[in-house]
């Protein structure tokens, strides 16, 4: 057991798996000598050398496209996109190639690339260092989409991703890169992709959240507890394929649902969860489903705190569905 924060958990997991699997190659902007702008790859260039940790030219399309080519050859490339906001020059490679290679080749060619990228607000990064556009990837068959919220899950999910036969978008909540710390076993373990986690048991209301928002939800839940509302919190962890069983069994229990994400509300991942519930568990619902989400505006700068869902907004939503 070691106490680690999230970015350290990423770093340790990469190191451990790179020792185990010499096919893993890291590549990206500033990932080598500099160890990544968030230091996620710190020390790895020094330890594994320039054939395993590669500083690339400034081109996401190249980083992802070249990773796909490496994967075709049998390596396990782990590209880092410096910020999720900067993934779009490489979006064509993700949409047209990464997600469809197995299918279109009839299973002949596979490209199990793991794209790591920090996402989300909370660092005063304005428009282009803050966005949460995970829904784009969830709407893309062929990808898996994973978002950890704790150091333990970071290691477990990243290990699972690095051993997965399919392409994985591994989105890291940069807001809590350093602020959330926790015990991480030194031994090798996996948290299975596709399984949610009931982070807190409760009876009255369910809050669904993931990534940095899990902690906002937990904060809100404590405030609610003080008001006598006993809230269950489900950390979704994998967004595609999401864990419908855990979702439905919690709804069945509480009948009241709040969904939290920092991505813009309209057509965000919360919509899918709400739609699933409206399709599969309507009769269990005792109150309208409330989404607490980022507003439908480009990510702001000065007014970031107003934009981001906070415990207060989540609490309001909990009270609303509870008192309905």
């Amino acid at each position, binding site marked *: 057991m070691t106490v680690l924060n999230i970015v350290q958990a990423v770093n340790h997991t990469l190191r451990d798996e790179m020792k185990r699997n010499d096919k893993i190659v890291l590549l990206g902007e500033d990932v080598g000598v500099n160890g990544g702008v968030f230091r996620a790859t710190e020390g790895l260039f020094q330890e594994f050398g320039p054939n395993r940790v590669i500083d690339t030219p400034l081109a996401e399309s190249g980083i992802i496209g070249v990773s796909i080519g*490496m994967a075709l*050859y049998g390596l396990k490339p782990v590209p880092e996109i410096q910020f999720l906001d900067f993934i779009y020059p490489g979006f064509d490679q993700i949409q047209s190639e990464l997600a469809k290679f197995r*299918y279109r080749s*009839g299973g002949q060619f596979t490209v199990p690339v793991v794209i790591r990228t920090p996402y989300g607000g909370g660092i005063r990064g304005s428009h282009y260092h803050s966005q949460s556009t995970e829904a784009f990837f969830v709407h893309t068959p062929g990808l898996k989409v994973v978002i950890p919220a704790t150091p333990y899950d970071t290691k477990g999910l990243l290990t699972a991703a690095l051993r997965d036969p399919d392409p994985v978008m591994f989105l890291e909540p940069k807001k809590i890169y350093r602020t959330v710390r926790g015990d991480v076993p030194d031994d090798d373990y996996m948290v299975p992709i596709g399984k949610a986690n009931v982070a807190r048991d409760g009876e009255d209301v369910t809050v669904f959240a993931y990534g940095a928002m899990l902690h906002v939800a937990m904060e809100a839940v404590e405030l609610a507890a003080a008001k006598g509302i006993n809230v269950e919190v489900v950390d979704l962890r994998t967004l595609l394929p999401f864990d*419908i069983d855990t979702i439905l069994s919690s709804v069945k229990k509480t009948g009241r649902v709040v969904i939290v994400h920092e991505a813009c509300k309209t057509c965000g991942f919360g919509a899918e969860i709400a739609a699933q519930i409206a399709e599969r568990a309507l009769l269990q619902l005792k109150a309208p489903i409330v989404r607490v989400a980022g507003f439908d505006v480009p990510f702001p700068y000065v007014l970031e705190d107003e934009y981001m869902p906070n415990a207060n907004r989540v609490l309001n939503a909990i009270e609303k569905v509870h008192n309905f």
Partner: protein
Amino acid sequence: MTVELLQVIKPTGEYVEEIEPDISKDELRRLYRLMVLLRNLDIRGLQLQRQGRIGFFIGSLGQEACQIGSAYALKPQDWAFPAYREIGAALLRGATLKEVMNQYFANAEDLQKGRQLTNLYGLKSINFVTGSAPIATQIPHAVGTALAAKIRGDPVVTLVYFGDGATSENDFHTGMNFAGVFKTPTVFFCQNNHWAISVPVERQTSAETIAVKAKAYGFEGVRVDGNDVLAIYRTVKEAVEKARKGGGPTLIEAVTYRMGPHSSSDDPTRYRTKEELEEWQRRDPITRFRKYLEKKRIWSESDEKKAQDDANHEIDEAIAHAEKIPRPALETLFTDVYSDMPWHLEEQLRELQEEKGRKEE
């Protein structure tokens, strides 16, 4: 930087002996027969589409020398990354006509499982990577595979096919640049066939040549007559050997012409003249190669007849077979999205099966 066009065989069939590549008589004949097969396949493919027997067709009429000459320069361990006209390269590397025809008919035996448009073909066993429609995306893949081989210390070269239009795309730039920076063993093979659907190459770039673009990435670009199979072979082979020796990438511009429509959906009379087409028909790569073989006295009228007959026979057989095979199973709509089928696809498959069942009741 060579900007002149390398030519081994002149349009008359005469040839420049000093640069004539060393290929055995039998092999020369084999290459020619393949070009004939490819030409006939193209003609028949378009017919099949017109007859409604296959859904779509995209051929390589006029570009046969590019396909055959380039692929012949590779070793088995090398990888080829086609765009969407490179069936000839696949056949040369060992794909069977039967496999190709199954892909045309998108039937249950198609290795692509009937999921792709005609000629978006791939075959893992020959390192021939399944293509896709989006232009230029395969270019960084070829660079990545080459980089992977280099990292692993394997003597593998990658060859990537693309058109003149593709040089305008993001991924041409990105792929070329990564190749330059990492000195990957990659051969960039641009078939400048003068058109990107209706857009002429002058509208793609105002660079003097496409070959010159390599300079922007710190490596060499060369131009070759794209209707001269031996010149292409020679040029590609040099680039492949250089790459294999650690000399890094090369861009090859093969100057050729798309003699057919862009695809079965296209009508080229809307945008180009008959005269232009006729001019290029006079430079037909197959006629030229035949003249060369005849000059060398290794090809006769009866060889020609046999080659044509064999090609057509082989094609007939492949069609007859492919047309008999049923379409892929319903389930294949959902397999291969992932290695294992996740719950939601299982559910969707079940729903579809139930609905089909209901409908059939």
